[in-house]
């Protein structure tokens, strides 16, 4: 027999003003199954909770209804109170007679009638609640970090320094990401490589970090605390153990004219190469599409002959490795918007009018970084790509692709204002007498010492800023004719430039969607990964145990990416610091006896938490096929319940019986 206690709260005057508390208390006492019905000024207060605890024990209550505010406000409070008194916390329901009643209905009679209905429904529901215990989930205290740019490096080092093992997966042959290719960084103008490469070396040498470069995540199984990640190590054709990184191989390689990815196509590399001298690991990789030997299966082999360590292996193949991890951090970074005509997305249309790809001296911002970088293809001398001349006039155009609904990207890429100011400074410092012209929409320089930096570019270094857009770029007699507008002056501007640098939009890196789907992480209309809450859970995702940081989440600069990476590492460490993982037990269950194994739920589950399974006898003989909920993955949305025609799926806390009895309690 149910012995339900109903505790009606005045909430001071908040409920009592419009709901007749005495009438409610008396009427509720007559409801079937109700053992005691009392009211109090503030149920959530200590004396209020004490009354609840006392009644649970003295009346041996089997369920509790607190009629007061929203469960979002105090369900946890009252569950805890029940637990303290020895009642299973999942045998507590709330009737929201404040937000949904007294605060919105001021006719006392109507509000009282509605409060009674709400309580009646809760009483019917709580009678059918089950005792539940939080689900314990084993916890692997290892992390997987995907992406070895500055964010991934930071996250990996933080976790590794805290004493936990980390597997770091990087798609390129070296870690370092975009930052490794930058010249100097705003607003301090310190050399990017000088601050990053020591961190890279730390990663390479850290006893707790296992580095997978030239590797990608193939598949992800499992759930929070227990991920099983299959990693594809792409064939490198170089034995990482034997190789000493001496360089004899790439020095001997005759295939020279391969555009360097690291130099953004501004320089060349061999067919066997390390992307840049400070690469970690400092081990080369053979470009399968460029190498004569690998293309033809015979011939050349110079690198193999030169290699004293016998590290070259032309028969190398992709390998699949499985890693276990309790948490996954995604730090896959960004790519630049392609300003040429071809786009990977029908909504984007490119900037054909700027002639990128047609005019050699129209380049993007990352290419400019390589031109200015001391380690770049020109050794840090700013020479224009077409003829190697030092440009005397450079036009910088901001917001190319960003903040442009017509081209498909409505967002602000955030870092362009700052790096363009930096570019003008670097250019002016290296090219005495050179002119730097900037076309901008707005200057957004929020950040520590950021606005001062932009002012310096304009006031000290003399960059000329025009508020307006460029409509067209043409080439005449070796000059780029840039036609734009200066909207502040209200006049058209035409500049004869030697080079044009486009500050193009940041977009999420290629392949991030496939990865997001493997991890069950959501993404927005632009493909940036979605955080769980924009304010309060900025590095968590809706997939438990998966965190995000860096530019895969949204355009951001280095300090922000690093801060977020440390936050993601911190969240991971909070999880690893727990004795064990527990999950809310209000999840779905499948009645395997009645399940007809149509697997509609398997297809529909937003968390791929339902698996195809087989019921076996104790001796292992097949009985039938069935669907089965993975307790580690189910988040308790109940989509499976509605999809299941035989109602073999049930959701704890919201069972069919509970809902029906609630609806039926409204029948009069």
């Amino acid at each position, binding site marked *: 027999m149910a012995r339900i206690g109903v505790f009606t709260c005045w909430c001071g005057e908040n409920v009592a003003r419009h709901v007749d508390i005495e009438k409610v208390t008396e009427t509720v006492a007559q409801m079937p199954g109700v053992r005691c019905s009392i009211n109090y000024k503030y149920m959530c207060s200590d004396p209020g909770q004490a009354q609840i605890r006392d009644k649970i024990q003295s009346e041996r209550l089997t369920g509790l209804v607190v009629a007061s505010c*929203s*469960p*979002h406000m105090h369900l946890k409070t009252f569950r805890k109170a029940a637990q303290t008194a020895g009642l299973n916390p999942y045998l507590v329901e709330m009737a*929201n007679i*404040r*937000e*949904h*009643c007294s*605060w*919105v*209905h*001021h*006719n006392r009679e*109507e*509000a009282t*009638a*509605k409060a009674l*209905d*709400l309580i009646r*429904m809760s009483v019917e529901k709580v009678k059918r609640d089950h005792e539940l215990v939080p689900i314990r989930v084993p916890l692997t205290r290892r992390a997987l970090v995907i992406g070895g740019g500055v964010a991934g490096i930071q996250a990996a080092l933080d976790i590794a320094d805290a004493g936990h093992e980390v597997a770091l997966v990087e798609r390129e042959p070296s870690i370092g990401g975009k930052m490794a290719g930058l010249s100097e960084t705003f607003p301090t103008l310190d050399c990017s490589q000088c601050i990053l490469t020591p961190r890279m070396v730390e990663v390479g040498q850290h006893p707790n970090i296992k580095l997978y470069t030239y590797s990608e995540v193939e598949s992800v199984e499992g759930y929070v605390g227990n991920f099983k990640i299959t990693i594809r190590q792409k064939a490198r054709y170089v034995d990482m153990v034997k190789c000493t990184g001496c360089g004899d191989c790439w020095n001997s390689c005759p295939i020279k004219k391969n555009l360097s990815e690291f130099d953004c196509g501004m320089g060349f590399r061999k067919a066997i190469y390390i992307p840049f001298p400070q690469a970690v690991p400092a081990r080369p990789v053979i470009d399968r599409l460029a190498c004569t030997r690998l293309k033809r299966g015979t011939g050349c082999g110079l690198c193999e002959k030169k290699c004293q360590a016998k590290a070259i292996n032309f028969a190398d193949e992709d390998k699949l490795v499985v890693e276990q991890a309790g948490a996954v951090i995604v730090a896959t970074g960004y790519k630049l918007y392609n300003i040429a005509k071809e786009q990977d997305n029908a909504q984007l249309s490119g900037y054909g009018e700027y002639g990128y790809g047609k005019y050699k001296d129209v380049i993007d911002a990352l290419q400019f970084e390589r031109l200015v970088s001391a380690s770049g293809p020109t050794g840090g001398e700013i020479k224009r790509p077409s003829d190697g001349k030092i440009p005397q006039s450079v036009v910088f155009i901001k917001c190319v692709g960003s903040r442009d609904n017509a081209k498909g990207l409505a967002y602000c890429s955030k870092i362009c204002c700052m790096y363009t100011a930096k570019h003008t400074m670097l250019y002016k410092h290296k090219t005495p007498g050179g002119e730097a012209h900037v076309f901008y929409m707005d200057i957004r320089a929020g950040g520590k010492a950021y606005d001062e930096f932009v002012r310096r570019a304009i006031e000290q270094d003399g960059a000329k800023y025009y508020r307006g857009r460029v409509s067209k770029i043409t080439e005449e007699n070796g000059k780029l004719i840039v036609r734009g507008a200066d909207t502040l002056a209200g006049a058209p501007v035409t500049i004869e430039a030697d080079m044009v640098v486009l500050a193009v939009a940041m977009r999420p890196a290629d392949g991030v969607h496939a990865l997001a789907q493997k991890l*069950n992480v*959501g993404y927005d209309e632009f493909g940036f990964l979605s955080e769980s809450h924009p304010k309060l859970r900025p590095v968590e995702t*809706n997939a438990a145990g998966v965190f995000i940081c860096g530019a895969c989440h949204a355009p951001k600069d280095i300090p922000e990416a690093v801060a977020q990476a440390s936050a993601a590492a911190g969240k991971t460490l909070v999880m690893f610091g727990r004795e064990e993982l527990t999950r809310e037990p*209000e999840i779905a269950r499948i009645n395997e006896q009645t399940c007809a194994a149509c697997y509609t739920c398997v297809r*529909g589950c*937003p*968390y791929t938490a339902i698996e195809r399974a087989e019921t076996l006898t104790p001796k292992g003989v097949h009985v039938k096929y069935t669907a089965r909920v993975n307790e580690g993955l189910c*988040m*308790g*949305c*109940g*989509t499976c*319940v*509605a*999809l299941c025609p035989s109602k073999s799926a049930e*959701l704890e806390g*919201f069972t069919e019986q509970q*809902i*029906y009895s*609630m*609806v*039926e309690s*409204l*029948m*009069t």
Partner: protein
Amino acid sequence: MNETNRFEPRIIAYVCNWCTYLGADLAGTNRLEYPANVRIIRFPCTGRIDFNLIVKAFEAGADAVLVSGCHPGDCHYTAGNYHARRRWMLFRQLLDTLGIDLNRIHFTWISAAEGRKWAQVVTGITEQTRQMGPYTAYREIARASA
């Protein structure tokens, strides 16, 4: 009809916990008064709300039913509301064929920030249902014996 004798429709609202329930909470926090005819039943997600529940509501004597959840893209569980949307696309067609009054079944997306929308929707449905009168057709079906 005078004020005291007017017909008070019974409205059952099936709402999701994370958007519409919180939207209704916000209406309360902002003290937005609306008619007291609605009875909310809370679900984790609109994805959980089965078509049988709509039938059940009418069997229980509801004059109108409201189903409300998170806007597309906002689902706490990423996709439950999309499943719900597809379900209602088809179910409405069936009810229409049966001659069940579609003006008595309402679907809305109401976010946690849309307290005002909640109050307006409930007010609107209550007024509309009051105009239409009790859903006697289904009450007869539910009450008649063989």
